[in-house]
């Protein structure tokens, strides 16, 4: 089980995410984002690190905040969050440590942000699932 897949959208890209636990769900969201960037296999010495602590009223807000946090790291601090350790995760709280190599290769595309459009986090066949539209 991959835990994420890319879904076609006319102008943007949909990212379908699933996970048996909240930890796995948020980890797969991060892995999916790297796939959209075309940077899944990026390696290198650690060049950036961030301790992310998020609280949000709903899992949908938490997911958008989490992805936007990682987008900021890539686009502004210019490193790739390839190594993620989720320390605590639930429907309204997320604590994680992100680390990864400097962004020096070309990315496949720019991701502007995660959107709330049609976003719903739900449980399907025992997995937490959601499809988030990323603005490209």
């Amino acid at each position, binding site marked *: 089980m991959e835990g994420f897949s890319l879904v076609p959208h*006319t102008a943007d890209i949909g990212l379908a995410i699933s996970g048996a636990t909240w930890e796995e769900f948020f980890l797969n969201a991060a892995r999916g984002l790297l796939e959209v960037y075309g940077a899944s296999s990026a390696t290198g010495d650690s060049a950036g690190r961030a301790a992310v602590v998020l609280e949000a009223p709903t899992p949908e807000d938490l997911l*958008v905040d989490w992805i936007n946090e990682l987008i900021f790291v890539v686009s502004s601090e210019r490193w790739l969050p390839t190594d993620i350790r989720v320390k605590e995760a639930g429907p309204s709280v997320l604590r994680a440590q992100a680390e990864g190599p400097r962004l020096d290769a070309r990315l496949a595309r720019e991701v502007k942000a995660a959107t709330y459009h049609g976003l719903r986090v739900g449980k399907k066949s025992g997995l937490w699932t959601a499809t988030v539209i990323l603005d490209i």
Partner: protein
Amino acid sequence: MSHRVRKIDAWRFEIPKTGGMLVPGLVYASERMIPKIEQERVAEQIENSAHLPGVVDAVLAMPDCHWGYGMPIGGVAAMDVDQGVISPGAVGYDISCGVRLVRSDLKAEAVKARVEKLMDALDARVASGVGKGGPLRVGKDEMGRVLSRGARWAVEKGFGDREDLEAAEEEGRVPGADPDAVSRRAQERGSDQVGTLGSGNHFLELQEVEEVFDPGIGAVFGLFPGQLVVLLHTGSRGLGYQVCSDSLSVMQGAVGRYGIRLPDRQLACAPLGSPEGRAYFGAMAAAANYALANRQVITHFIRESFMRGLDISPRDLGMRLVYDVSHNLARMETHGGRRLCVHRKGATRAFPAGHPDVPAMYRGVGQPVLVPGSMGTFSYVLVGTGLAMTETFGSVCHGAGRTMSRSQALKQTSGHQLLKDLNAKGIAVRTEGLRGLAEEAPAAYKDVSEVVDVCERAGLARKVARMKPLGVLKG
């Protein structure tokens, strides 16, 4: 045609007011375009947008409309200033994404042999590509001036001429900007991107004016057949994206506080007069000024590249700004005696002759409306009409509009093949990645000529000139 869409005439289709919609929807399209518009859920997004409090008359969609998020791309919604809301999702992430046309005194024919050299010079001077930074670093204090002064900041810093501002809306500065409403993160994200093109559908094209449909208006805009011009499409870069993200997060809470009910959270909004609404307006206007500064700095780089690439003096070059349009923006405007906040998301303002907001040099004919085609196809200059003022809050289309997803485009076109095809058409291409090139393949877009024809036949705009590309710089 489903029950959702009712034909009014050959170019107008109504989406009747149902459920919680406060106004109907009105789509400008040909009958041929309607099935795709319905299939793509544009109708649903128009219906959702019609729930925004204070929306007046109708939510509009231009012929280049397509599925976005929140309001569809190609959408226009106007809210009453006293009763209405402002919605970041009805503006989009790339705040003041826009188009700038720069003219020259040169004939395209005279430089055809040197197009490759010119493209190399442009490629070397204008940074392009995903998240790329440019040669400028804008510190915190300087950023405040960029955000409040827009293109005026750039000209004051030596990036361009005073004349460039005379041909720009509001002399290159969007009023109402509040730099303090722009988060530290947003400012950081934009600190090295002034003067950069970016990626995705952003581009810079060297073009030849192929046909001037209205020589009188063409002359006022400084355009003539066979002329070499440059068309630039970019926006507020990472700074604008971050402003939208930050504001949407704030608006999610505001919706509950003001008792607003919406079918799509991406449309989250706040009353125009509320602290949240005012903060977003100030930050959005500041991001728009960043976009105007960005396009002005690139204009300066274009001039430098031409002088270097062609070894020519500024006088012989005769390069000046024709116009600069923002097609993702909410603006305070007066329509039919009402003060409205007009949200345009992938739609271009098109004020006609006589409108006080049209720069003096164009007031006799109306503002130039710049409509870029998809890569390697035609682009158009239009002029707005009085009918557009009464029907569409003075708005028309913004481009070709996507019709195919990126993955579909990648399946159907290879970057190598597309590069070959463009070269075979005599178009010089400079790009950072062939994958990005394929995602933006012309086949992934509607036919811009058809989009423009619908606008003209519906009476919203008139064609002034058509340009064809000679060179493309794409991020």
